[in-house]
């Protein structure tokens, strides 16, 4: 198991390094950062001055090296717009996003996995149909619309939950449901398909022939094998929730990292955008790594590959 983890860790490091370079250089592909920063009315001299001030006149590799060195120490420079250190700016927002992401994926897994298992135990039963309906609805409903419906119903009509903000845990209930419900269908369908396949396999028949009870057959013998693809999917979903919850964050006025990314892109706030891209990518890399390790624990065949 340890060689496997080290190998994956090395691979993750390599991917992280590549991503850091891409995220750094992408911003230079979108035009002259000095000109953008100086604004439309600036003269050529002003632009040159800004170019020198921010060090854009140096070779790109040098700039990258400098940026990476600082980034590794947690220094992402100063936001052009907020005039604050990017690191503290992001740290503030990230806690909101992390809370939302963790709650969202937990909600998705807690609803999707039991539903998927129940649907697989009795294919074409009422439970299976309800699960299918829920997943189709979840896939079809845009999250902004679903979010607004929840706000209207529970925030305004019934007044059970606060419609916007992030100050108490109640504020996170509706965003969690909207974000989690969006991830639920894929997880549910994958759990169902996996369970159906595994339940038809020979080793499940062996377990039954040994005299194992249904609960043991389902949860010890079947689920462990069926859940493997779900782990990989959930890792990607989790990464997506952290980086792509912009819509949900906007609707519920949760000022998280997703919302910050949108603001920074709109304002051409390069250091913030660079840092956010890097951090979001790191999340993907970390979750994929964790998923790989978890899968290797679940399925010993993966450890040797």
């Amino acid at each position, binding site marked *: 198991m340890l060689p496997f983890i080290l190998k994956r860790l090395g691979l993750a490091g390599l991917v992280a390094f590549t991503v850091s370079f891409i995220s750094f250089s992408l911003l230079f592909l979108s035009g002259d950062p000095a000109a953008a920063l100086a604004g439309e009315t600036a003269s050529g001299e002003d632009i040159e001055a800004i170019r020198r001030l921010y060090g854009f006149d140096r070779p790109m590799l040098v700039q990258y090296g400098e940026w990476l060195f600082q980034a590794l120490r947690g220094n992402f420079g100063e936001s052009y717009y907020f005039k604050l250190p990017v690191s503290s700016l992001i740290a503030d927002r990230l806690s909101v996003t992390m809370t939302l992401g963790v709650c969202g994926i937990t909600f998705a897994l807690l609803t999707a996995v039991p539903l998927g298992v129940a649907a697989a135990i009795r294919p074409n039963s009422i439970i299976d149909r309800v699960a299918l309906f829920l997943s189709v609805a979840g896939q079809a409903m845009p999250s902004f619309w679903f979010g607004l419906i929840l706000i209207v119903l529970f925030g305004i009509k019934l007044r059970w939950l606060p419609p916007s903000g992030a100050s108490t845990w109640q504020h996170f209930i509706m965003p969690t449901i909207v974000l989690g419900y969006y991830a639920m269908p894929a997880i549910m369908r994958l759990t169902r398909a996996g369970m159906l396949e595994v339940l038809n*396999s*020979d*080793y499940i*028949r*062996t*377990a*039954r*022939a*040994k*005299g*194992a*009870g249904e609960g043991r057959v389902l949860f010890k*013998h079947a689920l*462990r*094998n069926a859940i493997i693809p779900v782990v990989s999917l959930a890792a990607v979903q989790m990464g997506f929730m952290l980086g792509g919850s912009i819509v949900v964050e906007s609707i519920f006025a949760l000022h998280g990292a997703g919302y910050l990314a949108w603001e920074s892109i709109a304002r051409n706030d390069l250091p913030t955008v660079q840092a956010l891209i890097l951090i979001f990518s790191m999340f993907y890399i970390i979750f994929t790594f964790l998923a790989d390790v978890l899968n290797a624990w*679940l*399925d*010993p*065949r993966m450890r040797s590959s």
Partner: protein
Amino acid sequence: MSHIQDTVKPLLSVRGLTLDIPLASGTLHAVRGIDFDLHKGETLCIVGESGSGKSLTSLAVMGLLEKNIRRSAEQLNFDGIDLIGASKRQMRGLRGDRIAMIFQEPMTSLNPAYTIGDQLVEALRLHRKVSREKARERAIELLEKVGITAAASRLSQYPHQLSGGLRQRVVIAMALMCEPELIIADEPTTALDVTIQAQILSLLVELTKEMDVAMILITHDLGVVARVADKVGVMYAGELVETGPATDVFGKPMHPYTRGLLHCIPQPGKTKRGEKLGTIPGIVPSLIGDVQGCAFRTRCPHVVEACRGDIPERGQPPHEFLCVHADGARAAEGEPA
């Protein structure tokens, strides 16, 4: 063949076992009223072509049929327990403890996520209140018995780290964990290399004899049957067309289908070099809808009008067969009476 008379009470007694599978195109009568008895320590070989209902019969005894298959029988008794009326809980208590099963596919019949040790230990601890340590000791003892070297270190290995032959040995050891009284082995060697087949089979037979376990061995390999069977049941299209002691069935096969099968394998001393082996022309009939008369009549060289009607049971216990011809048309084939 419902009048088998034995002085000792059989361990497993099957009368009129019928399995129906409802399909969109009608009901498939997969197994139609079969009878057999199995005594303690006996080996019964059930032979027949693919689709003749051999595997379904074994799953019916285990209570492991798919939910959509309808099972009925006048009698399905294991040591006085009515398996048809038994509760799920009772069946679970029997499975793996007193009745064990060995499946065809060693490559897929072990759970890939757990070690050999976990799976062996589980087999014992599902039925016996023993410590993990004790169960491990038993597992090691049995792995050694099935001829696995370095048994203790194998316990921490996963199925994918073992060859097919080794895996089938593990499966056999697993079946023996609780010292069952009956083992049902469904083509246990079919998926293995020919060289391994013989080893695994002798091992299985040796162990069942040594531990006095009754065995139902399902196979389509008549060579195997001749070597290991006490009793033989020949299955065709969902019926046991001939049953009897192995020496009788091989020495004097009564049913035309049994003779057809025997002609398909070369016999040392009898089959001449260059001579063509026999084949049975035709295919197994569909068992969907009403099945009347002898199912073998479409392929039988001795078919007469009466084959469409009810087929009488012939012969004397323990050697019986189903045929309209009193001698199973032996005379017509020039066989001695």
